[in-house]
């Protein structure tokens, strides 16, 4: 086996194992089976797939992970608390731009004329992610305080407005983050491992093992990072939702009056869960920015960043974190797959009207919109239902 494929396979073990852990049922044999099958899956993928298709799979999985994080964030808000957040795109954008501004080095000299930004601190990746989480928490808090003490449907109106305004700000304000022009050169974490000289702080043998990787293999390395983020977020959220806090959220969602009678502060708890969900969305934005390297306002369109996320959560199962992640991957697969479908029907459309083939992409919107309507009408609980009993101390 060539050393490059070996290293790729080794790296791929982590996301493959995590994926299998997610899919396999919760039995005692889950962990060993997942590890063994993960190793087999990782090496069979790297050896059998041509490098182009492997690269596509990796980029698909990375975007799937970004959407999985967004869906997890929305699940706290909608699935557990019943918040209608139609402004996912806003928190996603805030996370992405905040992390970008924190980690990009401010341009100097001639480049400063082409790239304007309020500040560029050049801080490490993790600081950028933390700042993204913090800023979206603050924005979510400011949105939640006036709105969440009122009827729940006002939140939907307010968040759709906030997301639109955030997008307008990043579109118009050149001084803030280069206006309508894209913001380029967002640094990628641990990029040194794929460079020829390697990271200085890593032990010698690790550098030697990773030596066959070249910069074009970096997406695979990023997939490892982002899948660990998803796994961490999943574990934390799952733990929180099975704790008394999570049960309190569900109680407020289902029986507001009796939750209040039991001494829960309804508004306060609702604000908490909204902010926690927005933090996850902000982190998703940061991870997205560091993955695509170049971002602009058009990436945060309501379709890609709000509507698709809703379809994902509703399909996977509201109130079920596993369902949220699985729904994210399925819908992202459907969305990516229909791109090929749109290409395939182009000649057919050309028969109907001349300029229809250019609009083939919009048939994907149509399909996803119908999918959401069908889920709402026929299976609002999604693929995997919410678990009724979540306490460890109760036997099912």
């Amino acid at each position: 086996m060539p050393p490059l494929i070996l290293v790729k396979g080794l790296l791929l073990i982590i996301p493959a194992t995590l994926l299998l852990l997610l899919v396999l049922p919760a039995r005692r044999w889950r962990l060993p089976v997942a590890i063994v099958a993960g190793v087999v899956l990782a090496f069979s993928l790297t050896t059998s797939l041509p490098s182009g298709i492997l690269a596509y799979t990796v980029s698909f999985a990375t975007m799937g992970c970004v959407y999985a994080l967004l869906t997890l964030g929305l699940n706290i808000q909608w699935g557990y608390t019943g918040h209608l957040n139609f402004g996912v795109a806003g928190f996603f954008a805030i996370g992405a731009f905040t992390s970008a501004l924190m980690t990009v080095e401010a341009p100097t000299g001639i480049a400063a004329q082409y790239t304007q930004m309020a500040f560029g601190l050049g801080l490490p990746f993790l600081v950028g992610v933390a700042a993204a989480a913090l800023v979206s928490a603050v924005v979510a808090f400011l949105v939640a305080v006036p709105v969440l003490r009122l009827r729940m449907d006002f939140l939907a109106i307010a968040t759709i407005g906030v997301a639109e305004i955030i997008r307008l700000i990043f579109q118009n304000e050149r001084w803030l983050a280069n206006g309508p022009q894209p913001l380029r050169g967002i640094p990628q974490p641990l990029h040194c491992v794929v460079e020829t000289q390697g990271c200085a702080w890593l032990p010698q043998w690790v550098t030697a093992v990773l030596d066959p990787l070249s910069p074009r293999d970096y997406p695979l390395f990023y997939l490892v990072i982002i899948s660990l983020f998803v796994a961490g977020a999943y574990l934390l959220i799952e733990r929180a939702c099975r704790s008394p806090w999570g049960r309190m959220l569900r109680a407020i969602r289902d029986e507001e009056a009796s939750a209040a009678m039991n001494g829960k502060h309804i508004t306060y708890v609702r604000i908490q869960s909204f902010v926690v969900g927005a933090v996850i969305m902000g982190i998703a934005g940061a991870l997205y920015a560091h993955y695509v390297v170049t971002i602009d306002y058009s990436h945060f369109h309501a379709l890609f960043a709000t509507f698709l996320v809703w379809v994902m959560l509703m399909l996977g199962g509201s109130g079920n974190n596993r369902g949220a992640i699985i729904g994210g991957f399925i819908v992202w697969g459907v969305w990516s797959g229909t791109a090929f479908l749109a290409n395939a029907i182009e000649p057919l459309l050309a028969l109907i009207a001349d300029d229809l083939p250019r609009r083939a992409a919009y048939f994907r919107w149509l399909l996803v919109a119908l999918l959401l309507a069908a889920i709402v009408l026929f299976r609002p609980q999604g693929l995997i239902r919410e678990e009724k009993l979540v306490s460890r101390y109760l036997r099912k």
Partner: protein
Amino acid sequence: MGTIQESEERAPVKRDKRLGERVHDVVQTRAFLLAAIAVVLLLLLVLAQLQGVSAERLLSLAAWGMMLGGIIGLGSIGLTLVYGVLKFPNFSHGALVTLGAYFTFAFLAWLPQGEPLSPLSFGWEFPVALLLSMPLVGLVAMVVDRAVYRRLRNQHAHLVLFAMASLAMAFFLRSIIYIAWGPDFHFYYPGRPNPALTLPLNIRVRADQLFILALALVLMLGVYALLERTRIGKAMRATADNPELAQVRGINTERVIAWTWLLGGALAAAGGTMYGLSSQLRPEMGFWLLLPMFAATIMGGIGNPYGALAGALIIGVAHQVSTAFLDPTYGPAVAFVLMVIVLLVRPQGLFGRGGG
């Protein structure tokens, strides 16, 4: 509904109110909300003055704001009626607005073009196209209701599912618009001049804009007549006020709902067509108007069409005055700020119940 509710003493239990409660009561009054809105408008004027905008230009902007308010108002009447009768925020209403504008566009291409009615920029075919597109959009709204919302009603679904279904329908209708007419801008009459007229007080407006305002007023009077004078209009208001009571009194709610969609859709089409006439046709135009329409709906009190109109005029003027010193694309932001003020001060709106 419709009439301003008299303030009523709702505290029969005798006890002295704490200071916080008294402040809260004052803040919640209608007068306080009006004062807060006036402060925002004044602030906009002061900001415009600081930017060195002349008073004449501000007057012109205010006149255009009335026109924009008419457009927003036409859209928000349908929104507020649906919100009142069916109790959910209809996020696809913006798509109905866009659809109306594009239907008019399609009819214009199909109708024979007449001479422009100077000083207006369009001929007789334009009102005809508008009259054709209004019932058509109303029909589309009714069909969507039959296909989606009625099923949910029959399932007694939670109201948030209605809102989500309406989001799905918004994207569905928008994708149809994209497929049928493409993502590019369109004009009803590309390249046709429409010079500004000078009115007394040196207000400069275009004849088209006066037409829009006049048509909005006519349609509003029509809505008033429909809601106040006809049986179905009264049934509509009764259902918006209290659906259970209306049903008990023998009102066929399904029929009322169908009429609500028809009326709302037709008015949305009129609003969209006028918006298209005053600027250009874009597939996202309705989405852009959605937030101002919701703001007007909440400001006027949900389910109150006259309140929505009043709110729409305030928002239209505030939006246009803000363009004196702000990028015009920030229009939704101005509407949003006003909406948040209403939610903070008096969530039931200017004409909603409770408080003084």
